[in-house]
């Protein structure tokens, strides 16, 4: 695997962790990210890429598993920041919140600081992930209540 542009990291396991962090931030509402962000001592950072809203064309597959086709677009906002200590943080999320993209990118950058990682994970990521999981679980339970139990009527033979 070739070197990635940022962080000189090539390990896919680390990418996997980072992907999860970024996904949790992406799935959170702008208000939730802002609340967590404001609980941090904000670090100094430079904007590498201004928060920017654009489009991603979502693809599906013919029949569910076949060749790809273009389904329609989604709005996406992204941002890249660099902390003065050198870590580069990125954010990509559905929607048009530039503030959320900026704050998420800063949190992603902080997470890459070894001394800050544990705190970011426990204070920010874990509660956001827990809230998302609990909301998904509520939907799952409500959905489960609508599952059909078929029963067979036994007709008398006499």
């Amino acid at each position: 695997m070739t070197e990635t542009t940022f962080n000189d990291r090539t390990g896919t396991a680390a990418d996997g962790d980072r992907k999860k962090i970024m996904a949790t931030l992406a799935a959170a509402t702008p208000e939730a990210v802002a609340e967590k962000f404001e609980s941090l001592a904000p670090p100094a950072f430079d904007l590498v890429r201004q928060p920017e809203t654009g489009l991603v064309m979502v693809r599906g597959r013919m029949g569910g598993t076949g060749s790809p086709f273009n389904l329609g677009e989604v709005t996406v906002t992204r941002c890249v920041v660099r902390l003065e200590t050198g870590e580069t943080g990125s954010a990509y999320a559905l929607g048009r919140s530039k503030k959320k993209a900026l704050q998420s990118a800063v949190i992603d950058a902080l997470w890459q600081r070894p001394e800050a990682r544990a705190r970011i994970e426990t204070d920010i990521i874990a509660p956001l992930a827990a809230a998302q999981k609990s909301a998904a679980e509520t939907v799952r339970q409500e959905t489960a209540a609508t599952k059909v139990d078929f029963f067979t009527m036994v007709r008398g033979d006499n």
Partner: protein
Amino acid sequence: MYVAVKGGEKAIRNAHKLTAKRRRGDTSVPALTLEQIAQQLSHSVARVMGEGSLYDETLAALAIKQARGDLIEAAFLMRAYRTTLPRFGYSTPVDTGAMRIERRISATYKDLPGGQVLGPTFDYSHRLLDFALAAEDDGVLRTAETAESVDEAMPRVTDLLGDEGLMEPDPVSDEDTPVGDLTREPLSFPADRDLRLQNLARGDEGFLLALAYSTQRGYGRTHPFAGEIRYGEVEVEFFAEELGFAVTLGSIKVTECQMVNQFAGSARAAPTFTRGYGLVFGQVERKAMSMAMVDRSMRWQELGEEQVAPAQDIEFVLSHSDNIQATGFVEHLKLPHYVDFQAELDLVRRMRAEWFGRREQQEEGEAAPEAAQ
């Protein structure tokens, strides 16, 4: 001759002001919030996102509010807005097999793994107006029942039949095969299935519904079964070049429909069921079903069928499914055509003059022999 027509600016300005006032309605009634529209008119929002071909609930809610509930106008606003944004790229194809299911039904298998899950639906309701909703501000707030959720796999019905070889497999192309994109190149014919599905996904629900209905009524019979309809959330992933991995952008709600149709087979291949596929933004089952039926009927050539009906006519279907294009062309008739019409007026006057001239000559011709007698 070109005649510049000017004027009407003031009338237009005032008409727009009036529209804004009428849109707002009686100011003693609270204004709609985008949240209210997004939450409580979710089917309208889904339709506008689908036909506007842009998934963004808040934007769709704004479009609906601005368009006073005119959903085609709202979809038009979405299409116009998207042209102002840069395109970052294409997502990894969504995996509907990993959908967080909120509804999943099959009309072909009673006992399928994962079961039949009804979810939120108008089906099985009596379509009686609920006056309780009118009488109370919040309507009757019913808390939904919950049940222990089981993490049971919900394989697609078509995969089950596929395991037995009874179902035609999905067509799989090379990863490098380019995927047609109507937002990049205008539609041209012959159109492959990738372009057809994109066109249908953003096509007008009413148009597709009518075409699907026509296939059921005998215009290109495909004998469909609703193999499976599923609705829920799928994750959207996008490969970020600078990061070197696919980032999860978030989740969108989609409806997927697998129509199972009658058989194809040949000397070389054993008979199998065939399929039509529907995938749309939001919970829009009527359209997902219609899309799958029309997709299937447009596959007549590949499946060795005869073309006998409108729903099979690829050029006809794809050229008329887009309600933004259609409304543009139909509604442009309201714009001034004074010069065009002046030319037509001149023409019809000339034709009438000639016609009367001929008749006069004819009458004179008929009168002449009488005079001679």
